[in-house]
Structures are given as structure tokens and as C-alpha cells.
């Protein structure tokens, strides 16, 4: 894709999100930087707790207290938005950045018809009369593929299925034609057969509206099908970021390789899926050096003391000493591990 030449729509630089707790401050997102170009789909993958949803929430300014942005900056169209006052940021949300959450069953207020919720959102951001807003709401519902939109617009959320509700949620996110949509696990709560439809819809709408998407998910299949670029997160940091084809086919970080190895692919006979031994460390127990080193099969002594930052690795960038001229250092011996 040629999108990478455009000036970025969203720039995230050295973002840090922390949670003050009784046992000290936890760094849940640690020094994360990435760009999203206009119209681009960036997939963000990682295990639960890798910090991907928090990154999304930090961008839309809806971190749940006591979580807070502790450093770095977020720029939308060149304007810093991470330090905006609440009321200013409110005007950005919905208007410039739309959001889609995981569970369509709980994202809609059960007491209001979907039409009313759409009109409310439209009128918050666009100077339209009630009837114009309703017309736009109707158009949006047709666009997201709600059959019989004219009748359905006055129905209540409980009268829709999960997949239909997620379509309504997408329509709500698109109300004011935002430049970016942060979609946090948009298909996780849906049936597999519906997932593909929703992903296809999201993809088509964003292409037509030239809307960029930050697609947060733990489903590598969704990413491979939808994203232009992928960022793989591990323990609050980006482990690898690059074009989707490279990351999927030629993973540069041992963690990404492990992730790809754990996905069954059709047409290939697997005797056994590979798995990554161990579990992602808790935020309180992140080891020194590379956070992935206790589970890594190719680690060296350098990995246990020095933390790698993102570095060029082919078309991608990976946070792994394998791609540094210095390498991973001397092999790790058994005694050293026990010590």
C-alpha cells in the first residue's frame, strides 16, 4: 500500500500509561510509539494484559481511573490531543475519533431506541435539524446493512441480534464521519459466522469513507484479513510492528513467530501446533532485560540485562537483539538461569 507516504493521521509517541496501586505504580503501557496514516488499518495484537486496549483507551482519552497517561504524546492531524481538557476532548471523540467496543450487547443504552441514540450523536457533532439528523441516521443504518432500516430505526436495542447491534454500534461510530476509528475487539463477543461479516463491513466502510482504523484484537486471523500493518504488543511494549504480510509470513520477533506458529492454517497439515511455553509476566514481575526473555528459545545473555528497543528488521521493526549488530550475546547456560 502506498499509504505510508502520506503524513500520519495519528501519531503516538513514547506513550506511557500507569496505574497507581497500593503496591506501587504499575506501568501498563511502556514507551509505545506508532503512526496511523489516513485510511490505513493498523492491527494491534497481543495477549490479554499486553496493554493493547489501554493504548486504545488512552488515545480516545477514556482511560478508566486510576489509570492515567504518564508520559509521551498523542497527536491527531498534527494536534496534540492527550492533554486536552475534558470538554475539548469530548468534541474530538465521536467527531474525529469514533470508537467501537467489544460487547455490542452492552454498548447501547437499553432504554432508548437506536434511532434516538443515533440522532443524539449526530446532533451532538453536526449542526443538523432533527429531521435531517433522522435522515442521516436512516442512511447510516442502511449503509451498515440493517434490513428494513425505516422500521427498525425506532426499535430498541433488545430487539436486535448481537451482530445487528454491532452494526448499529458501527453506525454510531460513523455518525460524524470520523477520521479514525478505534475498534477494541469488535468481533470477540460475536459468533464466528457473524465475525467475518462485521469485519468485512468495517473494512468496506472504512475504505469508502477513507477512515483509518486502529483494530485492537487478539485474533491474528482478523488482523491478517483486515489490517495493512500490524503492531504486536507484549507486556506493555510493542514487540514488532510492520506490514501485515511481513509480520505474518516472516516474523522478526521470536514472540511473533511463536504467535504465528500457534495458529492453524487451512491446507497445511499440522501434526502439532507450536505453543509458547510459560505465560506473559504480570506487570509487577516484568523481568530485567527483554520482557520476553524467560519464554524465549533464542535468548542470549544480553537479553537478560539490556532491554531492546524497536529496530529495523527487514520491512518491519522488532524489539529484539537478534536484529542488532551486537546480537543477543553469549548463550545462556543452565547455571546462569538457576542463579
Amino acid at each position, binding site marked *: 500500500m502506498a499509504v505510508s507516504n502520506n503524513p500520519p493521521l495519528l501519531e503516538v509517541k513514547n506513550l506511557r500509561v500507569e496505574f497507581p496501586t497500593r503496591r506501587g505504580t504499575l506501568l501498563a503501557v511502556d514507551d509505545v510509539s506508532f503512526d496511523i496514516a489516513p485510511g490505513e488499518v493498523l492491527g494491534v495484537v497481543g495477549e490479554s494484559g499486553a496493554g493493547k486496549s489501554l493504548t486504545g483507551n488512552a488515545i*480516545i482519552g*477514556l482511560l478508566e481511573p486510576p489509570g492515567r497517561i504518564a508520559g509521551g504524546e498523542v497527536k491527531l492531524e498534527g494536534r496534540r490531543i492527550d492533554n486536552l481538557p475534558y470538554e475539548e476532548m*469530548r*468534541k*474530538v*471523540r*465521536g*467527531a474525529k475519533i*469514533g*470508537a467501537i*467496543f467489544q*460487547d455490542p450487547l*452492552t*454498548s*447501547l*443504552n*437499553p*432504554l*432508548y*431506541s437506536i434511532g434516538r441514540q443515533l440522532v*443524539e*450523536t449526530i446532533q*451532538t*457533532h453536526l449542526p443538523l435539524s432533527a429531521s435531517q439528523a433522522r435522515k442521516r441516521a436512516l442512511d447510516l443504518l442502511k449503509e451498515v446493512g440493517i434490513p428494513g432500516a425505516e422500521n427498525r430505526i425506532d426499535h*430498541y436495542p*433488545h*430487539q436486535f441480534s448481537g451482530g445487528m447491534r454491532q452494526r448499529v*454500534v458501527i453506525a*454510531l*461510530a460513523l*455518525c*460524524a464521519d470520523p477520521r479514525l476509528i478505534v475498534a477494541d475487539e469488535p468481533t470477540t463477543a460475536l459468533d464466528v459466522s457473524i465475525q467475518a461479516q462485521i469485519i468485512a463491513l468495517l473494512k468496506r466502510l472504512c475504505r469508502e469513507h477513507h477512515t483509518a482504523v486502529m483494530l485492537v484484537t487478539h485474533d491474528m486471523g482478523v488482523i491478517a484479513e483486515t489490517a495493512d500493518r500490524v503492531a504486536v504488543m507484549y507486556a506493555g511494549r510493542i514487540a514488532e510492528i510492520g506490514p501485515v504480510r511481513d509480520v505474518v509470513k516472516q516474523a522478526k520477533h521470536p514472540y511473533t513467530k511463536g504467535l504465528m506458529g500457534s495458529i492453524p492454517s487451512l491446507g497445511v497439515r499440522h501434526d502439532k501446533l507450536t505453543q509458547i511455553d510459560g505465560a506473559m509476566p504480570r506487570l509487577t514481575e516484568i523481568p530485567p532485560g527483554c520482557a520476553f526473555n524467560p519464554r524465549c528459545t533464542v535468548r542470549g545473555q544480553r537479553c537478560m540485562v539490556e532491554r531492546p528497543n524497536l529496530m529495523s528488521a527487514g520491512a518491519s521493526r522488532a524489539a529484539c537483539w537478534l536484529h542488532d549488530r551486537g546480537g543477543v550475546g553469549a548463550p545462556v547456560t543452565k547455571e546462569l538461569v538457576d542463579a
Partner: protein
Amino acid sequence: MIAFILRRLLQSIAVLLAVGLVAFSLFRYVGDPINAMVGQDTSMEDRALLRERLGLNDSPPLQFLRFVSNAARGNFGLSYRTSEPVGRMIFERVPATLELAFCAAIFVLFVGVPMGVYTGLYPKHWSSRLLQTVSLLGVSLPPFLLGILLILVFAVMLHWLPSFGRGQTVQIGWWTTNFLTISGLKALILPSITLGLFQLTLIMRLVRSEMLEVMRTDYIKFGRARGLSNRAINFGHALKNTLVPVITVMGLQLGTLIAFAIVTETVFAWPGVGQLFLQSVQFSDIPVMAAYLLLIALLFVVINLVVDLLYFVVDPRLRSQGGAAKVAGH
């Protein structure tokens, strides 16, 4: 919907019949009504004659049937104490109690709900904590003590408000109202606060906890993500979602306000049915007690019916088929 209302009406009638049975047994088993009606020197024959004439020798089911049909027409017999028709005694005093309960309910609603919303939205603000603490006082202070304290401060020391009675009232048909005279309105203030304060703190705490819960839901977060204004989120989306439990409790509380106005009416010498009931108990005036019992039951049943119908107004999920079952679960 219609079927639901019909079913609720049938249930209401069943409840009233059950309460009626209790009221009826008061006559039969709490002392002998003949003894209460005649003097000591009445002969046994006269007593038997009276017993026969009043139908007290009929079978209990037949007597109950007669009691119910009389009660349905507002006929509860004569008071043992004053020999006035009980129905009229009650109806003369109902306006005083209803107006007092109504004012207390308004006080609860318009002070308690906003306080609950505020403390729910800003749970950590110092003023919320202060309200929380003060509300503890409201819950733990017994109404008679509160009433006496209010009288001490506002009537005895400051002379701002009257300490007893309804003040001047205006008669509209059979209804006497406090609302049309200054002294009547002033007389309402202290009793309303006394009666309502406990419920107010209850409602405030209920709204607060419901708000805290609703503010954590996904649709509130999604509302924020859509860029809705705080006002739309707090009042349009959050408050409305707290309404179902609040209406339920409010309905029950309104019944309680009427039924337990007894203490407040005594403290403020308020000429309502509560005071009448208390006097009747002292004199074992069973017809009045029975009528009072039925009146309170009727009010509870009506309020609950209204509450159930309000659910439908508030929550669209209940309007669809099978919603009635969910209401019953509330």
C-alpha cells in the same frame, strides 16, 4: 400488556380480600362486639335478639361476605367510641394524611434524588462525603425525636413555624386542603420534613449506589466515546437507567409514608387517619381499626399497581411479549 394489567388487578383483589379477612377476624375474635355495644345491664334475651338481628349467628363465611360487600360500599359500621359512621370519620381525616404524605414524598423526591445523583457522580468529592455522613444521621434519628427537635428550634425558639395542627384549611367538596392558605402551607413544613427525612436518606443512598453502578456500564463509556455531553450522559442516559429500582422503592416508601405517618401525626397533633387509628387502638374501637387496615392495604395495592405500570413507561424491554414475567421478578 392488557393481560398483565388484568392479572395484576386480580392479584390486587386477592390481596385486599386477604387483608379483609384479617380485619373481619378482628371483629369476631378480639372480644365480643355485643359486649362492646350494649351496657352491662342488658338482659341475655336482648343480647341474643341483637346478635340475631346483626346476623352474628350466621355462618362465618356468610358474615365475611356481608362484611366485604359492605366494605366495598364504604360502609364499615359505627364507631364503638363515638357512634359515628366509621367511613365518614376516616374520609374526614384522609385528606390531612394524604396531603402530609404527598408533601413528604415531594420533599424526598426533589431533594433525595438530586443528592443521590450528585453523590453518585462525584463519590470522592468532600461535599459528597459530607452528605453521606449527614444522611447517616437521617437514617439513625427516630422521627419522634427529629419532630421534637424541629419543634424546639423552629417553633419554640425561632417562632417561624407552628408546632401543631393543620393551620387554616379550605374545604373543597368533602376534601379539606392545606394548600390554599399560608398558615396551612406553613403547618405542612415541619411534619413533612419529619416524615420524609428517613425516606430521603434511603432514596439518596439508593440513587447513589445505582448511579455508581450505571456509570460503570459499557453504554455510558460508549456514550462518552460518542462525545455526548456530560449532561446527556448523566441525566439522559445514567439517571434514566437508575429509575426502575428507584420507582419501586419510591412506591413502597409512599405507602410507608402514609401508613407510618402515625408517629409524626401524634408529635404534631396532625388530625389525620394515623392519629385516629391511635385513638381507636386505645379504645379498642375495632370498626375504625378494621377500616384503617383496609384503607392502608388499598393504598399499597394501588401504589404498587401504578409502580408496575410505570415500569412499562420507563423500560422498553418490558413492553415486548413476556416482559410481564420480568416485572414480577422485580
